[in-house]
């Protein structure tokens, strides 16, 4: 779809729903913990009991404001909640308290990198609303004799962010979501878990002839529960639309569901079945006013965001852009890196070890796993200090790393106990080298005949004899000297 020779341009807009990590719900005091027994975290308000009334969660508003500022939005001095009506059994009031004409914030942008180029995607609006409950069907939805409803999730704060139709390819959509998620994680407002539904995405996609001023008819795709699925669904849909247009067909305005197993989108409802949400201002809540001071205080309290941190890692630590980009994916990972570098001031060495060793064990975007890592940054720094000052060899360090991972011990403890300290003493190593030369006459002979690669095998023998503790460069120079004397 990114093929510039294609006759069509892909136009994508994204709507992201993020569950906010507040302790209590959007409009009542119930806890928001995931996985509690059904309906154990409910009250008259989030069950939609007659006579109950909502009260705005100030913390959720704060989270919304922080995010809006991170997205460079204008935070409105006054905003209102509105009722959005539709019937569904998981929604206790049969209306959702959301925001409509007067959202929390508008007109921002998000910067991302696509195909090596920085891109700015405009953000139209950001608003707060409440989540719905969850239905549990006996069997499948089609065959169920009964369905049960769990209102634990009902009323959990959601933040909806709507982009302008500025995204130009499925890859760019995935990049947008990655950048989006990174910012939420940095702000600490959402745990970013797409599989658990803390972050949900709907995408609008249309095609238009390259250079055409007007947008084509858009299709909304729902049920996108991972970055990969967002990209796959959009790729499928762009192709489907292009083929339809090539056949001279018209694109119908409709909502389609992504079927990840089938790898295709399917019609969910057409334009005729679109809901009439009958929005009107929520009369149970007074308009929310945000003072300029409170917004400025929130702005001053913003943490360093991924882009700025990435730039600093390149500028101050001298890291390659690739490393800086990877390390700043999540706040937790960047914090990990910085904590390690503080105690082992060798940025590239630390970066290499995080990227090649640590991230092999722990997914880069799993904050929880990173926080629970058996190798805390202090331990990694300790290990790398031993490497940097020549106490242990890189080879030994990898074994020590494995042991640290299993035992949670620090490097020095393991190295001391197992006697892994590098041997760099020429006299001690000279004896080993002599022994190896004596024991491998064939290799020596090869070398003499000009097969210089035979030296490598001899180094390997020395390392083996010293259980990897020999300093490789000392071994090399000793070997070279002794071979030429033979």
């Amino acid at each position, binding site marked *: 779809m990114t093929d510039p020779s294609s006759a069509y341009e892909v136009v994508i807009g994204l709507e992201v729903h993020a569950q906010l990590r507040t302790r209590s719900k959007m409009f009542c005091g119930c806890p928001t913990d995931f996985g509690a027994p059904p309906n154990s975290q409910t009250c008259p308000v989030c069950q*939609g009991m007659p006579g109950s*009334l909502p009260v705005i969660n100030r913390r959720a508003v704060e989270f919304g404001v922080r995010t809006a500022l991170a997205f460079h939005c204008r935070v409105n001095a006054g905003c209102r909640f509105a009722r959005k009506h539709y019937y569904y059994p998981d929604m*206790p009031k049969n209306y959702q308290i959301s925001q409509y004409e007067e959202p929390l914030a508008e007109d921002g942008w998000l910067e991302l990198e696509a195909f090596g180029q920085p891109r700015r995607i405009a953000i139209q609006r950001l608003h707060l609303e409440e989540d719905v409950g969850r239905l549990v069907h006996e069997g499948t939805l089609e065959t169920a004799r009964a369905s049960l409803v769990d209102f634990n999730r009902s009323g959990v704060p959601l933040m909806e962010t709507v982009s302008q139709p500025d995204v130009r390819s499925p890859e760019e959509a995935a990049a947008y979501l990655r950048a989006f998620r990174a910012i939420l994680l940095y702000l600490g407002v959402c745990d970013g878990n797409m599989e658990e539904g803390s972050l949900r995405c709907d995408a609008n996609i249309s095609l238009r002839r390259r250079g055409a001023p007007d947008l084509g008819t858009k299709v909304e795709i729902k049920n996108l529960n991972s970055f990969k699925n967002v990209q796959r669904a959009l790729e499928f849909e762009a192709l489907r639309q292009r083929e339809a247009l090539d056949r001279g067909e018209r694109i119908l305005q409709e909502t389609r569901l992504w079927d990840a197993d089938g790898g295709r989108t399917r019609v969910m409802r057409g334009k005729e079945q679109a809901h009439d949400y009958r*929005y*009107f201002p929520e*009369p149970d809540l007074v308009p929310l006013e945000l003072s300029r001071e409170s917004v400025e205080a929130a702005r001053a309290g913003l943490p360093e965001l991924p882009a700025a941190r990435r730039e600093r890692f390149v500028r101050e630590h001298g890291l390659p852009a690739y490393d800086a980009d990877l390390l700043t994916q999540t706040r937790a990972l960047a914090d990990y890196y910085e904590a390690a570098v503080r105690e082992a001031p060798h940025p590239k060495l630390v970066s290499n070890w995080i990227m090649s060793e640590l991230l092999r064990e722990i997914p880069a975007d799993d904050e929880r796993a990173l926080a629970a890592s058996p190798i805390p940054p202090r331990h990694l720094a300790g290990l790398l200090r031993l490497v940097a000052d020549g106490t242990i060899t890189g080879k030994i360090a990898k074994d020590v790393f494995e042991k640290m991972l299993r035992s949670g011990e620090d490097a020095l403890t393991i190295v001391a106990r197992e006697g892994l300290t590098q041997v760099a003493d020429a006299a001690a190593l000279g004896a080993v080298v002599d022994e190896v030369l004596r024991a491998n006459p064939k290799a020596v002979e090869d070398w003499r005949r000009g097969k210089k690669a035979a030296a490598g095998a001899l180094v390997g023998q020395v390392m083996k004899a010293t259980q990897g503790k020999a300093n490789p460069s000392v071994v090399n120079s000793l070997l070279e000297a002794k071979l030429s004397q033979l």
Partner: protein
Amino acid sequence: MLTQLTVHALVEQFRGGAATPSAAARAYLDRIAAVDPSVRAYLTVTPERALAAAAAADARWRAGRPLSSIDGAPIAVKDLLCTKGVRTTCGSRILEHFVPPYDATVIERLEAAGAVLLGNEPPGTRAMGSSTEHSAFFATRNPWDLARVPGGSSGGSGAAVAADLAAAALGSDTGGSIRQPAAFTGTVGLKPTYGRVSRYGLVAFASSLDQIGPFAKDVVDAALVLRVIAGRDPLDSTSADVPVPDWVAELGRPIEGLRLGVPREYFVEGMDPEVEAAVREAIEVLKRLGGRAEPISLPATDYALAAYYLIAPAEASSNLARYDGVKYGSRAAGARDVIDMYSKTRAEGFGPEVKRRIMLGTYALSAGYHEAYYGKAQKVRTLVRRDFDAAFARVDVIVAPTTPNLPFKLGEKEDPLAMYLNDLFTIPVNLAGLPGLSVRCGFSLAGLPIGLQFIGRPFDEATLLRAAHAYEQATRWQARRPPLP
């Protein structure tokens, strides 16, 4: 007879030891058993609960430590206020078996003040309509003439107080549903300023209009009960953080020099001449007490009714959406799927008047009509508010009839439009969020009570109560009792 006493007279007896809360509660329960079968003011009576609360109040009075100046007073509440563990139906089939798991804030406050709750009064179905005929279960009668309606939708509360079946009662007022039945039953009915009393636990009809208020035997009692239930509630974001004054202490002050506005638009062609005469006479009484009456104009009044019948149904259609058979209340049997369950449940559970309003409201909010109906109605609402603002720049309180008519016979007003017109003088007050009070100001030749309405500035219940009290003290209307055993 204890049941004839006002709350303040009854409490004086508790204080002096001449009577006990238990004796009062038993007297009321006995009278309910004897008289309510003909008046039908109660949907649910809770004798055990009442007697237990009364016994606790006995002990407090004996120890000389009452909780408040209404401690031990037997009070009834409209069946639209959630009371933990007590069936709350809203007078509707759809909530026939609903037992709330929580108390409305006003119920908590009444109980914290020591009130003895006797039971629940039937509202018209979903607090809709000018008469309590629309209750799904039975029709409440007007104690002054059992063939007539007590008004609605808090007609049950008005009838209970008028018939001495409760010392005071709570109702709710959306478009006049406290003041109109107060006028019809000759009781004092007060709709406080929007935001004065918490709506938490009031089953919502039209959220931006609903307000809870007291029915009482006289103005002092209305002030006493209001003081207990008023004040900011963190559970209701629309409740106002405004000080709650001691209204009773203010009541004695003379009304010398009080500027009374008499709105031209509230004396209309076609209103009952007996009502008009009684209200005009009442204004003369107020003038003799030192009030200075002057004509005012509230020109948006003509459009207020139309605006109300868009805004109220729009909000109602939304508030009533939750009654779907999924969670509580009744659920229709034999549904094929969830949509069918919704349809059947709502078709069976709601009465025709409610359905009419849900349809009106849904239409007014629907795409393509939203701006023309709901949007326009909001603009009218602003104009109504401005009318009052302008009037209150010149006058301190507005006096007017509460209703254009006398209580009508059961089944008399079949035409919904004619019924809607009955709310002409009460609706603008809700649209503007102002306090309004109805007090008895005479009787028709046939012996039916007539209501005088006072309308005040936002949060100025003090002036309403003072003016109404002065009027009440200067006349003898309060002495008359309905022709009941």
